[in-house]
């Protein structure tokens, strides 16, 4: 089969991107960018539209005039079209839709105290808007034939994003977040899997139905349902029910979680931990984390560690369900096929986690952030590095808002020294920012103090930029795979049981996070 479609669409996308590059580079769109407040993104627009414009034109010419024969080259080349389609959509969303919505929202005015606008409240940023745009395309407009084959590239984008994320953790962060996630995920995953199985037995649903539903609700949504369906020999109807239920619940959570997070005043670590525990689908965990904090990646870093922990739990849970299913069926006299446990463990192991660990290990050697990049910052007393009188007054006016002793001490020390004095000191100050206790102005002062003391290396900063685009690309593409037809299958007992257990998990994990998770990691 020849996968490449002779369509001018990719060539047109390429020409439009090159025209856009020309317009931005020549300053013809400066007024528009200024109006949308996206002038900062101009270098990014120039770079990306030029690179991908050339790629797209080359691919488009190949599609139209190249000799297409069955084979691997044809298959891989055909995926470029779908990739360019997603990327073009992600660019429109990030450069125009997101700032347009934010502008409109600001013009409407704050809807909650603390200058909270509609787009802040509902997390209407490029990630959420990208997912929604993808969902609209697949459900209303339909994905064009020429792009169908490349839409799955979004998974590659997300996995690459998680692998690159490995460069942004310190050993201390990874150890502390790892411990926290193992405890929380261990409790809530095992608890919700067990709860679904228990309720399922009480309500007399088939073992195969209970098995696939418990994986979907308990571990990581559709991914877990896909991994577990064959081992519990789920019927087609049961798979449809579970995936429908998980998708509906996940989409609702993606919009609801950031709103609740803002309303309860959660910090980045708390929200990342809650989203990573309470949201069923792992893609929507990343979506909610970026919706909660669109202009930084602290929440995403926490949420992704929880995601990775869940994925590492997946082979164990699938194995448990396999053994459980065989025993349950045999206990009522049915003969079922025994499960190859070694194969389950190896096949279900997420290989991309090894890439994450490798990037973390490389980053730990300092290869991406040479020691010189922070030299002198902590010992630099030049005026440009110190807080000015106005900053000090802003912080003093709000110091009474802090309740924790370590945070009070850290703020007093900053006021005395006018700069962050050590990494621990800086970490505590970042914790204050993340907790969201202080006003935006005060947080801006603390962030300036942090930036004066800690400077990100160019490579790490580049990784962050790539990450943003990889997640935007991946989640926009994933939106194109959430079909209303699949969601409409939600219903019956699975929706009742799944909805109840999912809600219990979300509420209980919220309480636990608010009570026990501290902001400084």
């Amino acid at each position: 089969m020849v996968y490449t479609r002779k369509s001018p669409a990719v060539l047109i996308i390429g020409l439009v991107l090159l025209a856009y590059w020309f317009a931005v580079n020549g300053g013809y769109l400066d007024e528009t960018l200024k109006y949308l407040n996206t002038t900062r993104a101009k270098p990014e627009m120039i770079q990306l539209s030029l690179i991908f414009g050339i790629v797209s034109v080359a691919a488009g010419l190949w599609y139209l005039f190249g000799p297409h024969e069955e084979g691997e080259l044809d298959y891989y080349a055909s995926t470029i079209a779908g990739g360019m389609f997603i990327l073009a959509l992600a660019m429109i969303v990030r450069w125009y839709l997101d700032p347009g919505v934010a502008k409109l929202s600001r013009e409407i005015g704050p809807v909650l105290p603390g200058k909270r606008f509609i787009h802040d409240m509902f997390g209407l940023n490029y990630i959420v808007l990208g997912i929604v745009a993808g969902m609209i395309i697949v459900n209303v407009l339909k994905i064009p034939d020429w792009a169908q084959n490349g839409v799955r590239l979004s998974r590659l984008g997300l996995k690459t994003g998680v692998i690159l994320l490995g460069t942004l953790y310190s050993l201390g962060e990874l150890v502390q977040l790892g411990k926290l996630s193992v405890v929380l995920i261990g409790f809530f995953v095992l608890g919700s899997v067990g709860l679904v199985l228990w309720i399922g037995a009480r309500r007399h649903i088939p073992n195969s139905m209970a098995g696939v539903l418990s994986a979907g609700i308990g571990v990581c949504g559709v991914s877990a349902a896909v991994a577990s369906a064959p081992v519990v020999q789920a019927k087609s109807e049961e798979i449809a029910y579970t995936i429908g239920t998980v998708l509906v619940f996940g989409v609702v959570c993606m919009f609801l979680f950031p709103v609740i997070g803002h309303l309860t005043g959660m910090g980045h670590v708390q929200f990342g931990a809650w989203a990573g525990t309470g949201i069923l689908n792992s893609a929507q965990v990343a979506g909610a984390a970026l919706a909660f904090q669109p202009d930084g990646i602290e929440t995403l870093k926490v949420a992704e560690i929880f995601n990775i922990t869940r994925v590492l739990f997946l082979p164990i849970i699938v194995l448990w369900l396999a053994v459980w299913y065989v025993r349950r069926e045999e206990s009522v006299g049915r003969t079922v096929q025994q499960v190859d446990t070694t194969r389950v463990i190896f096949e279900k192991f997420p290989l991309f986690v090894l890439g994450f660990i490798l990037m973390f290990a490389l980053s730990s050697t300092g290869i991406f952030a040479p020691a010189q990049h922070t030299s002198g910052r902590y010992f630099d007393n030049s005026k440009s590095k110190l807080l000015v009188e106005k900053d000090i007054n802003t912080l003093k006016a709000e110091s009474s808002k802090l309740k924790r002793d370590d945070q009070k001490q850290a703020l007093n020390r900053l006021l005395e020294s006018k700069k962050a004095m050590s990494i621990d000191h800086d970490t505590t100050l970042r914790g204050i920012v993340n907790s969201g206790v202080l006003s935006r102005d005060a947080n801006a002062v603390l962030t300036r103090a942090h930036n004066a003391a800690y400077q990100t290396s160019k490579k790490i900063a580049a990784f962050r930029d790539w990450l943003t685009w990889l997640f935007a690309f991946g989640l926009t593409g994933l939106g194109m795979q959430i079909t209303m037809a699949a969601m409409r299958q939600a219903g019956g007992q699975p929706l009742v049981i799944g909805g109840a257990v999912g809600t219990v998990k979300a509420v209980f994990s919220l309480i636990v996070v608010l009570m026990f998770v501290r902001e400084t990691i």
Partner: protein
Amino acid sequence: MKARTILLASHGTAGAKAAETAAFGLCEPGGRIRHLVVVPDFWKGMLGDDWLNNAAVHVRFGRYVEGQLEREIVAHAETVAAEAKRRGFDYDCEVRLGKPAECLVAVAGKEAFDLVVVGSPRPKGAPGLRSRMDPETLAKGLTVPLLTVPHPGRDGGRRKDKE
């Protein structure tokens, strides 16, 4: 009223079983029943937004779902075929992937049928998947009389009351 050739759309649900019973009752002795089973195209989207699994897991899941659907269809078709044989009807079965109403219209247009028989959607609260048969597509596309058989759960306890 009896029909010589009937196109029956059914896939094993309670509503579809009512359609099977009606089709058997309406077919002339020695008549022919063409059984259409449609695998709805929502299965294309059933990997949902999964991105964590390896390709091997996706392939295994895809093969499993296809195998499972086939087992369910074969088991269902065998039951209908056995009943048709018992009653002396000529029976054959066709499986299609797509939108149920569109597939039904396409198959109905290929041959000369006297009647098309379908079940009706399950009543609210009854177990089972959502019906994907679009009545408007059928009404606009079919050139053959269509019989929609009421779902057995739709009349609730009314018949008993009448008795």
